[in-house]
């Protein structure tokens, strides 16, 4: 079997086949037959006319494919140009994402340096697209771009409300005991509702506020936290309630601060006291376990979180 298979392979080469015919001494008359097509590798006879037709068809297909690709690339170029002109909007970025998806499909269909180059360009434009002016990681939490401060960041449009906070409490039973009983109602089935959903979530400790931000980060796949003091100060309009910040409060006495932070491991946090809850200045330090009637919190995130959130949402919309 192996020998005959090897012979079959060798016969696929006409010259070698002739030589072998002579050497083996088999069918000497056959070598005299003129214009007989060479035997194909599989042993099938070749039909040059048909092959010619096939070749022409392939060339026609390639020509049509090229024409189609040229049209596609031209369309995509126009689409990208249009998208770039409105890059700051979700529509613009969405158009770029559509272009990217199409280019990836084209690339998978047939590799092409022009497609590769355009894909790289589109991806670069997507990556450098301006961050969205606002996004909503969770119902009730609308993050708006604050670019008055540098570096720019996102902050919740208003302090987190009880209506939003109860969603966190519903999934975090351990936190329920740390909020005022008159602000939330826990039903027998474990569902949690707010007595006043629109009211800012106040009387919340720094630890609970921080836990909410971490929960939001897991929920919305992003980096969320309490705003630092400069960020909280940059919020417009100033919040009606005082806000917890992520900034550590050192106080006037450095030695006292060292004892607190190094020896005791206690960190005091700055409260932006716009509502004058603490009555000792605009920015006051307090222990993270403190909670007051008019002390709430806002949520902040970096630009990348907003950009990633938009891309995630737009890509989800593009899914068939």
């Amino acid at each position, binding site marked *: 079997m192996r020998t005959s298979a090897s012979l079959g392979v060798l016969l696929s080469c006409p010259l070698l086949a002739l030589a072998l015919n002579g050497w083996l001494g088999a069918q000497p008359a056959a070598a005299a037959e003129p214009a007989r097509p060479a035997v194909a590798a599989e042993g099938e006879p070749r039909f040059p006319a048909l092959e010619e037709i096939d070749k022409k068809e392939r060339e026609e297909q390639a020509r049509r494919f090229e024409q189609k690709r040229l049209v596609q690339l031209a369309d995509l170029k126009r689409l990208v140009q249009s998208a770039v002109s409105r890059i700051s909007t979700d529509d613009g970025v969405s158009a770029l994402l559509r272009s990217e998806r199409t280019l990836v499909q084209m690339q998978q269909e047939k590799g092409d340096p022009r497609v590769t180059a355009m894909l790289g360009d589109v991806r670069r434009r997507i990556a450098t697209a301006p961050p969205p002016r606002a996004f909503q990681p969770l119902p009730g939490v609308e993050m708006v771009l604050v670019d008055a401060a540098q570096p720019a960041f996102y902050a919740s449009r208003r302090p987190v409300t009880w209506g939003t906070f109860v969603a966190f409490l519903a999934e975090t039973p351990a936190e329920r005991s740390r909020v005022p009983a008159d602000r939330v109602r826990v039903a027998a089935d474990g569902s949690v509702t707010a007595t006043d959903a629109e009211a800012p979530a106040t009387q919340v400790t720094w630890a609970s506020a921080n836990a909410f931000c971490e929960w939001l980060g897991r929920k919305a796949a992003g980096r969320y936290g309490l705003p630092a003091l400069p960020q909280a100060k940059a919020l417009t309009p100033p919040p009606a309630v005082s806000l917890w910040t992520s900034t550590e409060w050192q106080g006037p*006495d450095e*030695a*006292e601060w*060292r*004892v*607190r932070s*190094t*020896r*005791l*491991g*206690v960190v*005091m946090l700055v409260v932006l006291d716009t509502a004058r809850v*603490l*009555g*000792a200045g605009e920015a*006051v*330090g*307090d*222990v993270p*376990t*403190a*909670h007051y009637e008019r002390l709430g919190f806002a949520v902040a995130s970096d630009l990348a979180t907003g950009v990633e959130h938009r891309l995630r949402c737009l890509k989800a919309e593009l899914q068939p």
Partner: protein
Amino acid sequence: MSAFPQISSSVAVRGRSRGWAALALGLGLGVLGTACVTPPPPETYRGRLLEKRVVKTETVGRLAAELAPAVEGRLRLALTGADLVTVHEQPVYETVQEFKAENETDRTRIRRELVPGKLIEGAVEQRHEKRAAGPLADADVTVNGQPFRTGPDGLLTDNQELILRLLDAPKSTEVTLTVVHAKRGQAIVRLARADVLQALGVNVDNRRPAGQDGLQVTLTWEPREPRAGDGLRGTVQVRNAGPKFVACVETRTVSRLAWLDGRSFYIGGLEPGQARSFSRAFAVPAGQAPGECFGILGVWDLLGAVSDRNVPISLAVQPR
């Protein structure tokens, strides 16, 4: 030629007083002759010291203070009086006459005789004596400007925690107390932290190995709900429920409220199973707004911060 008449004139003047000069010369010679003939009286010398006559005594009251062992965690100072007496004394000697021949140098030939009834008084001298005056009982004193009263045993109890408050400052390794008594003046006492801990009976053993796993910390308040203007005592109890010796345990309050902040509770070393309490006095200011006051009791030992044993402080201050 012109000088001669002047000389003559001078001689003429002398000539007029010649009688008086002769008289004076005669008298002088007479005295000299008498002196040469009469032997000089024998010289007198100081003999034995007969007594020291007290001319004047001046007494100045002095104050001495030292740290006494604490009772129920309250530091005490032992105040004692000491008089500084200055005695002005005049030595009185017998008088001795010396008889000897002229130019006699042989001391054996010199005769000395006591002059009866004649004394020689020496120069007044000062002698200082320090006389213990015993405990300064029932006396009003000030310590660093704050009024205190000693007990019948001369002990001053630091109810106001003046010494502990000075040691609460992170940088202070020793405190200086100025004790002033109206009559006895002032005494300055310097106390190192180690002295104070020793007086408090704190186990300052810092031997290793030390473990902090079994530390149990509780904080109680008396009264539990103070009113503004009230004093209250906070008591920290630390129990070592672990298997290892725990060294140098100390706790300290952290709060944004000055009256609640920065009080150290010295627990010291604890053998396995051992518990120790330490109390501190606090005073709610009269101006403290009613409501919850927050803080954290931080814990550390020889190995560093034991943050997971920190105790949240929440004191509900009632209206006056």
